[in-house]
């Protein structure tokens, strides 16, 4: 598989993403839905029906080109929040994020696809939303379709897809768009073994092409294999960052599961 001809303007070890003093707090309303009625009620009582959640606290992180950064941590550690902030979807509460290059995201929920439309239409929709032109998508479409191995199903409505097919298509779009920086959030876990192998190869290709990748995953084996660097988040705080094996070992010691066969297997 050849990487498409679009060359990368960035060199190894140049900074791709710089995160400085990142803090993020969510203010969630306790009322299930914010409504006029709820607002009027709390106005009368003079109380604020909100709860503040500290999702990230003073995180400093650099990602260089030619590197793959793995992000690990328990559920609710702030991994996905950090990915959303880097992608510019959520504004940070404190700190500053500088991004040097184009970003393509593959977040847990998948692209904002319209399930009643075919995979083909959704590829166009997703690409256009990401700011590509129609011609650019058309040029890459065959490659996306081939990589996803969907075959004729590409023209079937996406509501008929299995979750594996869905994530295969989403990964193909995100990885074929050839971003400078690719952010993948737990999207590698739904594909079958063959597709997982293929996407790992693609990640390695992107790495050697001096792109920057950030991968959020609970699959420690995968991370040990592809990452040059692992960051461990716990309750919004960056606990440790460094060499993959050392960081993952520390994380697993922390979880008191040690390196048993069960936890090392790809989930």
């Amino acid at each position, binding site marked *: 598989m050849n990487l498409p001809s679009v060359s990368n303007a960035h060199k190894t070890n*140049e900074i791709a993403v710089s995160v400085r003093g990142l803090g993020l707090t969510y*203010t969630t309303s306790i009322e299930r839905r*914010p409504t006029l009625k709820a*607002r009027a009620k709390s106005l009368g009582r003079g109380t604020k029906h909100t709860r503040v959640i500290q999702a990230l606290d003073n995180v400093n992180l650099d990602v260089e080109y030619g590197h793959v950064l793995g992000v690990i941590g328990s559920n609710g550690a702030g991994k996905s929040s950090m990915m959303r902030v880097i992608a510019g*979807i959520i*504004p940070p509460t404190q700190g*500053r994020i*500088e991004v040097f290059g184009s*970003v393509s995201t593959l977040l847990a929920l998948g692209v904002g696809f319209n399930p009643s*439309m075919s995979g083909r239409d959704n590829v166009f929709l997703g690409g256009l939303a990401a700011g590509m032109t129609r011609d650019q998508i058309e040029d890459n479409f065959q490659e996306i379709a081939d990589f996803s191995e969907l075959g004729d199903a590409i023209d079937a409505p996406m509501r008929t897809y299995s979750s594996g097919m869905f994530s295969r298509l989403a990964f193909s779009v995100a990885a074929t768009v050839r971003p400078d920086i690719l952010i993948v959030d737990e999207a590698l876990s739904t594909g079958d073994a063959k597709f997982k192998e293929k996407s790992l190869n693609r990640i390695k290709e992107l790495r050697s092409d001096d792109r920057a990748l950030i991968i959020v995953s609970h699959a420690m084996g995968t991370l040990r294999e592809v990452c040059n660097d692992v960051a461990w988040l716990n309750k919004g705080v960056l606990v440790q960052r460094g060499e993959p094996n050392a960081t993952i070992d520390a994380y697993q010691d922390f979880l008191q599961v040690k390196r048993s066969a069960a936890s090392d297997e790809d989930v």
Partner: protein
Amino acid sequence: MSAPIQVPSQVYEPFHAGLPPLIRYSKSLWLRRTFIVEYSRSELRSKNFGSFFGQLWLILNPLLLSAVYFLLIVIIRGSSDSARYVHLTATLFLFYFVSNSLTGGVKAVTGGQRLILNTAFPRIMLPISAVVIALFRFLPTLLVFLIIRTVLGGAFFWQMLWAIPILFITTLLSLGLAITISCMNVYFRDIASFLPYLTRTILYLSPVLYESSALSPKVLKIEILNPLFPLLDSWSQALVHGQAPQTSSMLVALAWAVAIFVIGSYIFLSREREFAVRL
């Protein structure tokens, strides 16, 4: 390995209510203009408007509506004529363009949750798409109206071309309304349930079921508060009667449209970066 000094392509800093850099914002909006059209099309298609009967319904629905309201007029007034029916269809169809923009716009942001949580793009595209959908649904009814007018109304005048600037102002107003209400619905989710009453009230306050000449001067003075009144009045003046609309009502309509569009966009743009955490 000397790192050259680079300019970051994106900088994200804490959110504070204020406008994003407008030039960069409009550039990235312009870059996605095809997305707005494609997204609107896909929404229309997903509501089965891609099929033959779905498209037929786009025409049948306003025709049935106009028939029902015509029946209402006949019963209340005791009699009616074809000129009244032509006026009714003209104004009702334009009214439904605005009304569809509102009903589409109110859910535009809250319904686009998946898209908003997973992709970074100018959020204002969502209410804009709602108006484009409403426009797509309006255009065939305009054709239906022209057929009705040819059959019932007789001659065409060049003054009917005034409909073009009026439609332009109406689109601007619809954009402003859709942008405003889509943003409000993020903070007050029950607005969507009030909306049918709001549109129904505006319908009865507007010269659709009656002509503006039927109103007393006192009521006409109050109608300056209804942004749709001068638009629908001028629309009927131009398309039904073939006369140039009054300059004053065109100016009032334009002032309303620009004001709502600017204020709505300001509120939306200064708040939109917060939407992802509010959904």
